Structure formats: structure tokens, C-alpha cells
């Protein structure tokens, strides 16, 4: 069981990251941001960066670092906010999000010195690349782990299943995929767009599958991630984390309207008020 201190730290970091998401997304003005899919992922990314992964912002390319591959690249604000909190990027750099000439695009661009391992945004590819990275670690006899954040809508992509089968073939038990199952994709709910039992699909592909009923709960995430990180059962691991799209901002939660859009001043004020209220609860 994760200790209270770590759970508190993750929750504290998650609150700060949500604030960064809102600030960066609002700062992008009319260029907008993928608020909903970043906010659903916050506890997952926070648990990895501040509880689970071996990494060092002072030495971002150290050989034995655990790798984090954000396959659902549109939710880049979850990653950027973690990189900011961890010290990979500065507040000033965060403020350039989506700006002309910024290295923080609307989808991550590989930039290992700032902690961005893989370019992503065309869905499915980050996960498949992560599988190759996990295989490379096996070939080289290195002990680090590879974590990849995947969207539930992203599981529509064919390459996800090409890579999922291949990961089982090569016994990539040093790989942990986390599906951010927020039940909403761009044009509708996952049920409306492609109503499939992804749990059954991952099991059928041969993965070690764990379903988290509350994927925004730090304690259960930490336990699940720690268990899978330490497991060497010959199978790649996937945590299907049931989350809430837009988590933490009342008018975004579960909404089909906040996948990606600009935020106006009124909405920003309301979002900040939500985050401030959460602190006092």
C-alpha cells in the first residue's frame, strides 16, 4: 500500500498540475488547448513522475531513467505540467505553450533534454515506439521500465493492436501501459464512436490487465503502478484506469465540449475558482 505521505504528495502535485493546465491552456488564447484529456490524466502522470519513476531532472538523459512516453499526445498539458513541477522546464517556458517558436507544441516533440522522450500526436504511434524502447532495454540488459500513457479513444487505432500483439510476443514485462479511460473522445463518447470492450481486447492480446475503478485516485494508482513496475511475469502490463474527462473543473467533467477548445476569461475564472475551492475542501 502506498504510504499516506506519498499519496498526499501526489495529490498536492496533481492540484498544482491542474492549475498549470488551466494557466497554459488559457494562455494559449484563441489557439485553445486539449483541456479535458489532459485533466483526466493528471493523477496518472503525477503518480509516475512524483511517486513511481526513477528519473532526475538534473540529469534528464541518464541511462537508467525510467521512460515516460505520452502516446495520447494531445493531452500534452498533463506532461508539460509534470515537467514544470519536476523542474525539467521553467515557468517561463511553460508560458510559451503553443506560442510561435515555442518547443512546447500542441503535441509533444521529442526533446530528451527537457524530458520529452518521443514525438507523438498521431495516435497509436507513441505506444508502438514505447514497445520498441522496452525491447531495446531487454536487448541491452538494462533494468529501467517504460511507461506509456494511452487514450481509450486511441485504442481505435490499428497500430495499437499491432504493437500490443508484438509486445506479448517479445515478453515485454518491463513495459506498463496506462489507458486513461475517460470514456469521451473527440466526436462523442467512446460508447457512441466505437463501442468495444477494451478490457477484453487487451486480455485477448495476452496482456496482464488491471482495471482501476477510480483512475483519478492517487492511492490506487500508486499501488497498481508499483505492482506492475515490479512484476516480471513475462507479460506486458496494462492498467485500464477509469477516469473523468475534464476532472477537477466542474463544467468540463464528463463534457463532450471540452476535448479541445479555447477558454475565455469567464471560463478561466470559473476554472480557477473550482481549483481554489478544491483546496479548501
Amino acid at each position: 500500500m502506498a504510504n499516506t505521505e506519498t499519496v498526499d504528495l501526489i495529490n498536492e502535485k496533481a492540484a498544482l498540475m491542474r492549475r498549470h493546465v488551466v494557466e497554459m491552456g488559457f494562455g494559449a488564447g484563441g489557439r485553445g488547448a486539449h483541456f479535458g484529456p489532459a485533466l483526466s490524466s493528471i493523477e496518472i502522470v503525477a503518480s509516475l513522475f512524483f511517486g513511481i519513476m526513477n528519473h532526475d531532472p538534473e540529469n534528464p538523459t541518464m541511462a537508467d531513467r525510467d521512460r515516460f512516453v505520452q502516446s495520447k499526445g494531445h493531452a500534452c498539458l498533463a506532461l508539460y505540467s509534470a515537467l514544470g513541477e519536476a523542474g525539467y522546464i521553467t515557468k517561463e517556458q511553460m508560458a510559451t505553450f503553443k506560442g510561435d517558436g515555442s518547443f512546447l507544441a500542441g503535441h509533444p516533440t521529442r526533446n530528451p533534454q527537457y524530458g520529452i522522450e518521443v514525438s507523438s500526436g498521431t495516435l497509436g504511434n507513441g505506444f508502438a515506439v514505447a514497445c520498441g524502447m522496452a525491447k531495446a532495454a531487454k536487448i541491452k540488459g538494462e533494468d529501467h521500465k517504460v511507461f506509456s500513457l494511452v487514450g481509450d479513444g486511441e485504442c481505435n487505432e490499428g497500430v495499437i493492436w499491432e504493437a500490443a500483439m508484438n509486445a506479448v510476443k517479445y515478453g515485454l514485462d518491463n513495459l506498463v501501459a496506462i489507458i486513461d479511460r475517460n470514456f469521451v473522445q473527440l466526436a462523442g463518447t467512446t460508447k457512441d464512436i466505437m463501442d468495444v470492450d477494451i478490457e477484453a481486447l487487451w486480455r485477448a492480446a495476452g496482456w496482464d490487465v488491471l482495471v482501476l475503478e477510480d483512475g483519478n485516485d492517487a492511492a490506487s494508482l500508486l499501488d497498481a503502478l508499483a505492482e506492475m513496475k515490479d512484476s516480471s511475469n513475462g507479460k506486458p502490463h496494462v492498467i485500464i484506469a477509469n477516469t473523468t474527462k475534464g476532472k477537477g473543473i466542474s463544467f468540463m467533467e464528463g463534457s463532450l465540449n471540452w476535448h479541445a477548445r479555447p477558454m475565455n476569461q469567464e471560463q478561466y475564472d470559473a476554472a480557477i475558482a473550482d481549483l481554489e475551492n478544491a483546496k479548501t475542501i
Partner: protein
Amino acid sequence: MNPAALDKLQDWSKAGHRTVQADTLMMLAAEHPEVVALSADLTPTARLVEFKDTYPDRFFDVGIAEQNLIDFSAGLALEGLRPFAVGLAAMVPMRPAEQVRAALGYMNANVTVIGIEAGVRFGPLGNTHYAMDDIAVVRAIPNFTVIAPSDPLSTHKALYACIEHEGPVYLRLTGGPGYPVMYSEDFDFQIGKSIEYRPGSDVAFISSGSLLADAVGAADILEDKGISTRVVDMHTIKPLDTEMLDKVFAENKLVVTVEEHSPMGGLGGAVAEYKAGVVGAPKQVFASLGDKFQKLGDHKFLMKENGLTAPDLATLAETNL
């Protein structure tokens, strides 16, 4: 190169490019522990059974899954390995074109994609198995190098150049059994540096891939008629050897680009793009596959159909001079 290659040229010529690349990958693997090879259920076709048996831990068959072939290779490359992903030219850069762009080009990954049986080499298998547009697709992707070697030794040497090269490479192979030996001794092969195969001042054939032999045959015909003919082995299509092109444009009266590819976006397109900015450059004609799906037929039939035999090339040059 591996010196043993020189002893294998006749065998390689008989066997064709599949064997050349497979044997060379074996040599590279023996010399470079970071070399790994991948295929998408084409191991025997790509002549990689020996590689698989010799290096079972460094060979990966990802199944019939070209998108993952590319992404998985990229992941291996980002961690320091040197993947060579082998597949049919009709499929390996085309089916996963988006992965080739995002995972290889965009991340500048050290992956060599080997497209075997490029052009219309697959003859009777039909148009789904022809690669007539692969150069155009890959050439448009930043960071990519595109190489179409002309013979067994240049194929071997191109692969040795790939292992030293930073960034993704598409190695496009033509030249089936009967792959003409154009280089029987060691020579200087540099990516981006073409080879003046023979000098000449009237016509210039600029050739890529195994059609070099036909361009040389055409040059023989023209020389017999008193038409001085230069032949350039433009083995690297990207980056293009503009220094050689400047020389050709200054000294020759007609440029004929020769390739087993669509007239759009391949070697001919690349030369024309550069030539557009050269004042006073000579006329260019395109010897290529037409902008069309092909009739069914064996390779020899299709070369004739598309005007890519030596006599056809000579006639094309003579009538346009």
C-alpha cells in the same frame, strides 16, 4: 565495405538484390553489435532466414504489421540500436507512410528502411505489388535520405554507408536475378555523391537504381552514332548531388533522367526541381514508368512497355537532342 563482398559479386549478380542486402546485413551484424533486423512476415522473401537463425535475439518478425514495423524500429533506434527494417517497397514505406514521417523522419531516428522489389519488379503479381511512387512519398519527408543503388557492390556499400549515417534512410532496391555488375572493384561510395560512370558532352543520362546498366547500353548505341553521352549514377536521390548536376547542366545539351518510378516526385522530379532555378540549363526528358497503373506482365515486358530498355532510351535521347 567488407572485402569478402568482392568474391561474392558473381553470386550476388545471379541472385539479385534480396540476397545482396541479406548477406550484407549478416556482415554488418557480425561487425556491429547494435545492428538488428526486422521484417513483417517476409523473412524468407527477404532472404533473412540465415540472419534469424544466426542472431535470434537480434531479429524481429513483427507479423503482418507494417505500421508497427516502423514504430517498433524507431523505439529500438531511439535507445541506440541500429535497426534495418526490410519489406516490400510497395508496402514498407507506403502502408505506414504516416509512421515513416512521424516516427522516423520527425524524430530523425537511425532506422534504415529497405524496400525490396521496388518499381515493377514483381511483374505478374500486379499493381498492388509495384512501388512506383515510393520515392516521391519518402523524399518529401524531412531528414530522410533516399538511396537507389545500381548494382550488387553499390548495394553492399550503400548499406555500409547507412550504418555510419545519422538519420533515417530509405534504401530502394531494384535489380533482380541477373543484377548487372557495374562495379567489379572497390570504389568510393558516399551518400549524396553521385558517380560519373562515363564522360560525354551531348546527352547526359542521369540514372538511379539498376537501370544504370540500360543507360550505359543506350550510351553505347548513341556513341556508335557519334553522339557523345555522359552517364551519371545518381545513387542518392536525396540529398541530390547538385554539384554534379551543375556540371551536367553546363556541359551537356540534353538531360535524360532514368528511373523505375513514376515521372512524378522521383529522381526526374528531383532533378527538375533543382533545374528550375538554373538559368540556361538544358532540356530534360523523363525516362520513367508512366503516370498510370501498369499492364500485367513480367519485368522485361514492363520495361519495354515503359520505354526503359537501352534501345528505347537511346531513341528517346536522339529524338530530343
